[in-house]
């Protein structure tokens, strides 16, 4: 947990992007449909039902696959020499430089700073009544949890199992699920912030929210 928040912020300020490599899923002949520096859009719609921008076409055994962008951003480091060539699986075609917005940066910082409690298995999760009541009374940053506290109820096959918190003591900073939702295994459930970092984290997030452009 020894992370310097200032270093993190400086890093995101100097390079507020995430580079997603676009690699071929399998062998085939590739035909690129984008150019260097072109802006592409990721899937959209309420259920992400509208596919993103067409990136390239890969043909194998007369099966022409249209590969679309999974992230929004700009095309960079494009390998133009592979146009119309046969490539192996996992060949890097180009990268999509995705500009992080402030919520994404906050999320990334929090995942590194907070102590994350992951879902032990795919099930329905509910906040423990005591925690839930305390969260209603006071702001969630103020709800403190310590080892041995019953924080969650896992509901699976009509059986409710209480999950106790076993990490470092701290304040419950972020709840990653809606009470009663089904959560996949290993997905984050709760983010707990150690008390010594709480004020500092809040300050940094406040700064990002106010100062960051997008």
């Amino acid at each position, binding site marked *: 947990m020894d992370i310097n928040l200032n270093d993190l912020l400086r890093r995101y300020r100097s390079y507020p992007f995430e580079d997603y490599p676009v690699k071929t899923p399998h062998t085939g002949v590739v035909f690129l449909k984008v150019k260097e520096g072109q802006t592409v859009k990721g899937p959209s719609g*309420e*259920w992400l*039902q509208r596919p993103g921008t067409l990136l390239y076409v890969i043909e*194998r*055994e*007369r*099966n022409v696959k249209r590969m679309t962008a999974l992230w929004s951003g700009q095309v960079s480091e494009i390998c133009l020499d592979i146009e119309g060539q046969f490539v192996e699986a996992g060949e890097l075609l180009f990268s999509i430089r995705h500009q992080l917005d402030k919520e994404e940066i906050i999320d990334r910082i929090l995942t590194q700073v907070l102590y994350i409690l992951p879902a032990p298995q795919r099930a329905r999760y509910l906040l423990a009544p005591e925690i839930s009541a305390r969260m209603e009374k006071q702001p969630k940053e103020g709800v403190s949890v310590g080892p041995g506290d019953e924080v969650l109820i896992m509901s699976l096959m009509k059986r409710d199992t209480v999950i106790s918190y076993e990490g470092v003591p701290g304040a419950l900073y972020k709840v990653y699920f809606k009470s009663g939702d089904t959560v996949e295994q290993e997905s984050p459930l709760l983010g707990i912030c150690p008390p010594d970092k709480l004020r500092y984290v809040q300050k940094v997030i406040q700064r990002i929210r106010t100062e960051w452009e997008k």
Partner: protein
Amino acid sequence: MADSGKLLSQLADRISYLIDIKGNSEWSNVGDLLGRIQWLRQSLFEIKEADLFEEIDRIEDRISFLEDRVAEKLGPAEIVNIVRSPQRFTLMDILENVYDSYTELGGEGDCNIDPAIMVARATISRRVKNKLYSHHVMVIGHEKGRGEEYRNGGCARPWGNDKALRYMRVAETEGIPIHFYIFTPGSYPIEDYPGAAQQIARNLYVMAKLKVPMVSFISEGGSGGAEAIGVSGLRLMGSRGYYSVISPEGAAAIEGKIREGEKVPRELVEHCAVQLKITAEDNLKLGTVDRIIEEPPLGARRDDFPFFRRLRYEILRATDEVVLKTKNFRAFRAYALKRRKEEGKEVPEDFDLFISWSLTDLEIERLIEFRLKKYMELGNGYFLENKNVLTEGIRKTKIFASKTYYDLRYGLLRPHRRNVQKVIEEVSSEGSVFLRKVTEPVMAAYDFIFPQPERPGKVVRSEGPEHRSIFAEEWESYVSPLANEDRTVTCPNASKYGCLDLWVPDLYGEFCGVCPNCGHHFPLEYQWYLENLFDKNSVHEFNDHIASCNPLDFQGYDVRLKKDIKRTGRNSSMITFDAEVWGLRLVVAMLFSNFRGGTVGTAEGEKFVRACDVAGTTRRPLLAYIHSTGGIRIHEGTLGVVQMPKCTLAVREYNDNGGLYIVVYDNNSYAGPVASFLGCSLYQFGIRSSRIGFAGPRVIRETTGQDVPPDYHSAKNALKRGHIQGIWDRREFKKNLHDALMTLGGPNLYYK
């Protein structure tokens, strides 16, 4: 001055109405005229009274002239605008002006299950020789709501149609006639329980045999939504109403292949409105309505009291006619009613004729018979049938012979044989019990003295069909031509479940078009089912001589129809045939996608009705296998729409006679057919990866303004909503169908 204010307000209403009809304010500068009136209203006290009235007279003359001009050349698109005008009369106006009193049922105003559907228990009276007679009726209709948003423009939600059905049953319990008033642009296309399509189908199914006289009046008849409360003994229509399979805008979007979000050209909308034959005169010619009620030249408005008087007279007369048809002694009264009709357009002050609307059991039977007969005749003559005196004679003789044979075999001899068998069984059971009582002590003593060693019991084989792999048969007989390509395809679920690419000969050969990893069903041609689902050489098609045509002379449709006939080698999108599934004979009606997208028109409707008749006569189960259907064929207009009640009535008749009707959906099944003869089935199943619903995602988005999830119409969701009873795997289709045929259905089937 007060009078002038009122006059100006009336003139402003008349101009707004003209703008509504023409669809724009630029026509003949009516917009300027309206501006002038607004100015006069504002400067009412600044102008001399004489000048003001002179100006009002001038404007009134101009408006009257414009109204006459509009009335002279009133096109179908303008009639649609009249119907949609907020100044047009609504159901509430009818209840207030046509009926003596009414009590709204199922909620009031916006405190209602669905304010778009209004139900009222009303009283309507007539004067005969200075004596007043009152009739109680149930009034059910759409309320467009005088502009209120909560009425949803008369688009009934599924639960609104359910409410209508509930009160139809109340009317049946109380034995009072029902008056339906149709003011809907269409049903609200949502799948939430009970589901738009399924509820309309349920309504049609119940209305088919409702034991009360029903009369309907159409002002705005928007396809399936209109049919949900439209089955009746007599269908009336306002002379400025419209009744259509689809809105002219919808038809234009399809015809012009307009992309979503793009504006549909006005000329194309007007062209489609003409082509669809939606006016009252057109519908009367086509036989989809029985009578037109005359309205003023520019349509009746909310304060048109002479029209309400006429409507009251016509609705009384129509109910009388429906009732009178069922009576034994009716000649003089029928003559009197007919004479009234011929007397002219004047509405008489009194009726001089009283007909009681209560019916005896026998009369109710006749009422239902007449209804069935009336609907079976709808659309007849609007499909092609190669018949001459000889073939028609042979067909009728065949029908008569098979009816006599099957009636004798299964209607007369089998019940007799069953009764005899039952008596024998009873007697033998009684005898065995009696004998056991007598012989038991002797046998016990014998067993005690001479004990027998125990022997293992014999293994009894089940009588069920021997399970055979579908693959073996498939390799023997038929392989989809899709398998002839040397290439691979990607499963649409590959990103979700990591399915590997599939080699086409494997996929369409050994795998029967099913992804071996996730079970996604790739579409297969209908021939695959003909060859693999039924026993070899058991498929015998009938009524293949009935062909689709272009009954409305829809421009450009002839060419497309010919192209489809040439491409598919078939005359219509429905194939009806006898077949066998592991020796079990059944009748099948199949809608397939290659011919006009599997849409239903008069030819398809007639073929389906005849298939029901064949199945009913031969006591065989009826399977409707829907390879794909896109709804009712818009090029056949309301002739297509009336196939919905027609086919549903046929299904009801078949079911009531002890038939077993199973529907299996495959690929895409939408709109009219699902909202009628398919959705009314008691047993509906979906093949995996099929989509079932009322309207497609685009129509839902355009109508409700809300997007729907990509899996909104999936078979899985249809199952969750209770619209289907199960999802079948294509590879198990034959086995599942056989199981269903064996386990479902009553004792009237030939094999039970």
